[in-house]
């Protein structure tokens, strides 16, 4: 009783995804050649968006070719710019991979913004209040503190969802505002530098600064943490029972319950992980870039993280290229502004167009899916 017919030699599943509804964020296995096809498509899409964005650049009286050359050089042109772009990608990747796990379990955590903020606060507090500790103790401690604070912040939203049924979108969104205000408050009060011209904490002692990886550049060790986080999350997601549970939750509550998964435990743990990673991102940012807590240090990171996670089709490992894409694009666009004098508004235009085109390209290629 077999329904299978003469089998063609190569397996072509390219249009098998004929489910009438496909969660648009479900992904293909990326281990194979398809990954490169998608990358190529994405690259084409970026080029196309540049072509479109050339129109306003021309209108603003600049030469688009020069502008894009400046952009490319600004992103990849020197060790320094690469270092900067990597630094920029670091918090995006850290927070983004956590968001990817959450969204996979259908927990819509948009609280990265607030979790990063409190992570930064906690790490700063530790860096400022543990004088005398050597860097090898102080830095891990501060990173850990940041991660715990972020996790705790996420746990509030998770708790409200579990106990009172408050939708996590609302919980995390509102806590973002509170978290950001908390930064202002501590800088206005206990942690502020007296007499400073701006809401900021005193400079951390040097042993609390994240070590730089490349002497002479600002590239700090955070990118290693980001890499580690991506690899771990990938392994955990695809290769552990915990990841299996998340995947189940992401497909159906009923099936998850049937498989013996406790929604409460899984939701709480995935929120803690994502919050922890976001908090870590905040810690890395203050310890690696600013060397102090400063108002607005995390502006927009949380939302970028969401965009990056989704751009990566919620595939933990794909968060890495997506985060790097953001980091390098932003770095290049900023350099382009400096070099050519393209108005900053066009930086947003290019960024928006690039995202839309990449999404469309990946959207079409998104035929195969894996849950």
């Amino acid at each position, binding site marked *: 009783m077999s329904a299978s017919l003469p089998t063609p030699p190569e397996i072509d599943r390219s249009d098998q*995804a*004929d*489910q*009438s*509804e*496909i*969660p*648009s*964020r479900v992904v293909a296995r990326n281990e194979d050649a398809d990954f490169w096809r998608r990358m190529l498509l994405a690259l084409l899409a970026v080029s196309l968006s540049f072509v479109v964005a050339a129109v*306003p650049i021309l*209108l*603003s009286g600049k030469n688009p070719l020069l502008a894009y050359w400046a952009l490319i050089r600004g992103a990849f042109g020197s060790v320094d710019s690469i270092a900067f772009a990597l630094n920029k990608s670091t918090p995006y990747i850290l927070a983004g991979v956590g968001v990817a796990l959450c969204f996979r379990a259908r927990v819509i955590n948009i609280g990265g913004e607030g979790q990063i903020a409190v992570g930064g606060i906690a790490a700063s507090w530790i860096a400022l209040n543990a004088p005398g500790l050597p860097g090898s103790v102080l830095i891990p401690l501060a990173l850990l503190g940041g991660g715990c604070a972020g996790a705790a912040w996420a746990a509030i939203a998770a708790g*409200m969802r579990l106990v*009172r*049924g*408050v*939708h996590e*979108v*609302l*919980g995390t*969104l*509102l*806590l973002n*505002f*509170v978290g950001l*205000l*908390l930064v*202002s*408050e501590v800088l*206005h*009060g206990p942690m502020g530098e007296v007499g400073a011209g701006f809401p900021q904490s005193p400079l951390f002692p040097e042993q609390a600064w994240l070590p730089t990886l490349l002497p002479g550049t600002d590239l700090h060790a955070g990118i290693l943490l980001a890499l580690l986080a991506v690899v771990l999350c990938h392994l955990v997601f695809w290769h552990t029972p915990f990841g299996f549970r998340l995947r189940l939750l992401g497909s159906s509550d009923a099936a998850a319950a049937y498989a013996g998964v406790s929604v409460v435990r899984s939701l709480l743990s995935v929120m803690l992980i994502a919050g922890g990673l976001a908090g870590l991102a905040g810690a890395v940012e203050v310890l690696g870039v600013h060397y102090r807590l400063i108002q607005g240090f995390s502006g927009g990171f949380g*939302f970028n993280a*969401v*965009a990056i996670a*989704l*751009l990566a*089709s919620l595939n933990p490992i794909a968060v890495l290229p997506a985060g790097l894409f953001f980091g390098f694009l932003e770095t290049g666009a900023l350099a382009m502004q400096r070099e050519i004098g393209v*108005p*900053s*508004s*066009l*930086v*947003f*235009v*290019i*960024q*928006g*167009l690039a*995202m*839309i085109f990449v*999404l*469309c390209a*990946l*959207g*079409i290629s*998104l035929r195969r899916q894996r849950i």
Partner: protein
Amino acid sequence: MNYAVIIELLSASIRIATPLLLVALGGVISETGGTFAVGVEGMMLGGAFGGAVTVLVTQNILVGLLASMISGVLLAAIVAVATVRFRTDHMVTGLAVNILALGMTSFLLRGLFGGKTPVMVLPTIGTVRIPWLCNLPVAGPILFNEPLMTYLAFFLVIPVHLFLRRTRAGLTLRAVGENPSAAFSVGANPERIRAVAVMVCGAFAGLGGAVLSLQELGTFTDGMTNGRGFLALAAIIVGRWTPFRVMWGCLLIGAASALALNIQGWGLPMSSYVIQMTPYLIALAVLCGIGRKARMPAAIGKAFLRS
């Protein structure tokens, strides 16, 4: 607190809620049809911009409102094409459109006026006193002495509600958001319906933006929506995707923000930062109090694929 202050608190709530409500109603339509309305922030900004520029040129507010709707629809069309035709993720598409709108409005503002930002002083939509009713105590000054768009926003709740609950088209829209295959199997075209819903949302959001530029401020500044689109999305969840409850959600946000401004005058021994947390904490507390689980439209964010 005296009478005047209470009146002001309540009317401030309504004022703050007005643009949110317009945007949220559009968002309800889009999300009921199954498309996350994350792009409303950008559509709102586009509307504020289109309206302002048009009024600057034509000095005609009606034309300006029309232009704001068109601007919103244009941005919405991007979302519609990307999500429906290319099946992109709704949320990132929305976020991308927000970024695009921020850049485009700023760029065009400068570009349209030869690189120099104009000092925009626009005629604004004035208050309309409703004769008789505006003389009622309390309710009079709060409810019947408002600008035109405020009446419009609150009035629109009714047709949107009736549309969703009482018409066949509304029923189909809801079905498309819940189970597009089921809608397809009874002859609907989920893709077209979703695209239209997103564009209608754009029109609403554009109007919401026009409230800021043409009713509240009479000018346009870069990024002037400043996250109000996201607050509208929050109101949609608070209101669980039904127009009247969403209206209450907007009013809750309005009241909480108005209160936070007012509390600053009480001379409490805490910084303004702590006080400014209050609207969010109030909102969280209220939500915990209501404590009911929101249920999103089942197929929201999911692409519809024909075989």
